[in-house]
């Protein structure tokens, strides 16, 4: 039943950077299913830009591991979705290809950085898509657009072919309208790849189960404190009440290390990014540099011109955080904070099976609302801890505030992605009924 899928979406929310009008597919568990891929995941023969002008026209000669798996499973790769430039943002507004709009309300952002993937699903253009999550980039747009998104355990999905933003934090993950589809897509992409040395051979092969009787749900006070919209908090509390109704019990827990989570996160991700993005220097990417200039001058001018302001800001921050005399004060301290947060989660997850809270502190922002970078960074407070701790986390729609979607975030122990999927599934099935 191999064939070609004709794909010409009505992309009024600008979810795609590239679409494939004729998408070939083959036999397999996803035979003929249209799957969109975030534009920082390498696709052989299909332009891969990371939402940046510097990679405009870059066509990878090889497939990311997950893309190879998608093709093997028969999926039709129908396009590459819009994103914040190199994943740096929570709104998809930093893309060089224009912002994506939220299908739930086109005056709002879809969240980010995997905003294109979330919007494509929410708008009904594709049933499922791949996103990537460095500090919430799958879960934030899933919550804002009202779909489901899973950030897998660090080391569960191969990063081979994912154009790195912050290697030690990020994972590729599935996004879909339903938990079941998220789980299906996860079963396809979570297969061992020896090319990623940070990966463990723990394939995901699971059908979600809605039986959560006896489950202990940890509710951290830090997830319902200052900065969290009380109406969002209430919506999420109600969702946790639904879990109790299904036989789960709730336990108050604490993640004291959360105080330093954002600072640690932004030091680590910008440090790694400053190194990862250094290769985009005009020698092989972007238009040819001006050979009349000395090479370092040409590099500087090209990078100044082709990276957007948020990317330049993060490269500068990371360069500073790693520089001699400051690395001890910033990079090394951030690693300590990261270990503390990991230990906090480990401790809490010995007492409970799962931790629940809001995915985002608010509903989707208006386009252009977050003008100063700091307030944008603050909105990541509830998602970055899972990346720092390397634990699986899912966002599942749990109601609306001002008719905008709210996401329930469920975090589990490392390599217990199956459990966070089951709890999300139990909730989804219960409220659907």
């Amino acid at each position, binding site marked *: 039943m191999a064939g070609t899928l004709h794909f010409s979406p009505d992309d009024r929310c600008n979810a795609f950077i590239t679409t494939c009008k004729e998408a070939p597919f083959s036999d397999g568990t996803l035979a003929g299913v249209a799957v969109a891929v975030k534009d920082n995941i*390498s696709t052989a023969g299909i332009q891969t830009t*990371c939402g940046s002008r510097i990679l405009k026209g870059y066509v*990878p000669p090889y497939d990311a591991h997950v893309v190879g798996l998608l093709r093997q499973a028969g999926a039709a790769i129908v396009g590459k979705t819009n994103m914040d430039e190199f994943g740096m943002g929570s709104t998809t507004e930093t893309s060089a290809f224009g912002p994506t709009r939220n299908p739930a309300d086109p005056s709002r952002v879809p969240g980010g950085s995997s905003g294109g993937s979330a919007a494509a699903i929410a708008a009904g253009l594709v049933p499922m898509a791949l996103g990537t999550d460095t500090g919430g980039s799958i879960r934030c747009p899933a919550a804002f657009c009202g779909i489901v998104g899973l950030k897998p355990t660090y080391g569960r999905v191969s990063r081979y072919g994912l154009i790195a933003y912050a290697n030690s934090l990020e994972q590729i993950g599935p996004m879909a309208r339903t938990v079941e589809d998220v789980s299906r897509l996860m079963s396809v992409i979570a297969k061992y790849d020896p090319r990623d*040395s940070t990966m463990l051979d723990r394939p995901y092969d699971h059908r979600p189960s809605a039986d959560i009787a006896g489950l202990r749900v940890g509710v951290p006070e830090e997830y319902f404190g200052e900065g969290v919209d009380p109406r969002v908090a209430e919506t999420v509390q109600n969702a946790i009440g639904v879990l109790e109704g299904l036989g789960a019990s709730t336990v108050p827990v604490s993640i004291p290390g959360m105080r330093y989570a954002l600072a640690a996160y932004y030091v680590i991700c910008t440090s790694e990014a400053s190194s990862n993005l250094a290769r985009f220097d005009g020698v092989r990417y972007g238009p040819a540099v001006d050979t009349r200039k000395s090479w370092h001058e040409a590099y500087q001018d090209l990078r100044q011109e082709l990276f957007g302001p948020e990317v330049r800001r993060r490269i500068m921050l990371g360069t500073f955080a790693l520089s001699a005399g400051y690395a001890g004060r910033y990079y090394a301290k951030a690693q300590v904070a990261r270990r503390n947060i990991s230990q906090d989660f480990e401790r809490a997850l010995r007492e409970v099976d799962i931790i629940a809270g809001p995915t985002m502190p608010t509903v989707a922002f208006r386009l252009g609302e977050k003008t100063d970078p700091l307030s944008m960074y603050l909105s990541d407070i509830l998602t970055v801890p899972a990346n720092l701790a390397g634990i699986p986390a899912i966002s599942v729609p749990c109601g609306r505030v001002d008719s905008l979607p709210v996401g329930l975030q469920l975090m589990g122990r490392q390599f217990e992605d199956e459990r966070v999927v089951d709890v999300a599934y139990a909730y989804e099935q219960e409220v659907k009924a």
Partner: protein
Amino acid sequence: MKTIVGLEIHVQLATATKLFCGCSTDYRDDEPNTHCCPICLGLPGALPRLNRKAVEYGLRVAKALDMKVPEESEFARKNYFYPDLPKAYQVTQYDKPLAIEGTVEIEDDEGHEKLVRITRVHLEEDPGRLVHVAGGAKYSLVDYNRSGIPLLEIVTEPDMRSPQEARRFLNKLRTILEYLGVFDGDREGSLRVDANISLEGSERVEVKNISSYKGVEKALTFEVTRQKNLLRRGQKVTRETRHFMEGRGITTSARSKEEEHDYRYFPEPDLRPLRVAGWVAEIDLPELPVARKNRFMAQYGISLNHARTLTGDPKLADFYEEVAHIDPVLAATWVADTLLGELNYRDMSIAAVPADRIAELLALLRSETVTDAAGTQVLREMLDACAAGSPCERPADIVERAGLSKATGGEFTAIVQKIVAANPQAVEDYRIGKKGALNFLVGQVMKETRGRADPRELGKIVSEIIETGGV
């Protein structure tokens, strides 16, 4: 004024594939950019996968140099921009190297044994190579065949006291590396050296990227003179990086901008920490140079000098052991003196010489089928053929074809008579007792007979002919 020298040596490990990908390392004679993949090209999204063999090779060196291997070592990124560096960072090791604290024994300038301490060894990847286009082009080309070649950086303490000691250290180190089978000295750029040199009480100067041992000695000798002259004129030595201009034998100051690097090292997040201390016990070291030299003397009864020469290069030592069964002492003389001399003259490697043919030649020499002089001629013919890539004739066939088999003096009576007749002055000198005259006459006959006769035997015939008045 004491000279203080420390070295950083980059050794190209002789693995079949690169440090982080499966590309072949043997790109000699191949077109540029034909040994590359997404990983060594640093394409976005590609990830490094550590070559286990390179780690084993590094540990072999660590064990041979008697080093400590920490429980955990770690790769780090060294960040800097340069057009030959595809990722704009080099994956190397920084504060957690593969091994620390070892020693190498060398002879000091007075001929005494001394220990040079090894600070650390670590693994790292080589960048690509810039190819500058002739004819004033406005651009350069990048060849990534070399990108990702595994290097072992070996750092010494400042324990050497002269340029000569530094060269002896490098020779010794090279021999050890060759014995360990981790290094192919014949590959271009397989060993590169940065040297730190200071005069006691003065600032230190780093001379970068010297690509030969002779270069190291030359560069350091130049620096000693330059620094002494500065001090003699009452000036100070500036702490700086200098480049060695191989062709001119001098060092020149690198622009100070090049030194102002902040490499912003941090642990490579794409690789896990390396926990390989447990591997060391599994490593079987081969017999190292000193042990082999002692065994050669004991087992084959050859001289210290021959044993030292033969074991100075593992390939030469192996070669000797392949031919020693014919006659160990004869073989030692022929391999260490005659053959090695002929090879150096031709700039040939011992690897190009077929041992079985040399064994045959040794057998001819041992049975006195040919003389030493004829043997040398046969050897030269064989080496010329090998150097030209032609099949190597059997020595017996060469002897046959060229008529080089040893002849008794009687065969040459006519020639001897001719020589004696043509050199009356020498005959006269001989008669009045000048010893040299006989040697001269014998030499003339040898020349005429192309060395086929045994000179001692010939001497007897010449004197007989003179004395019996055969003139």
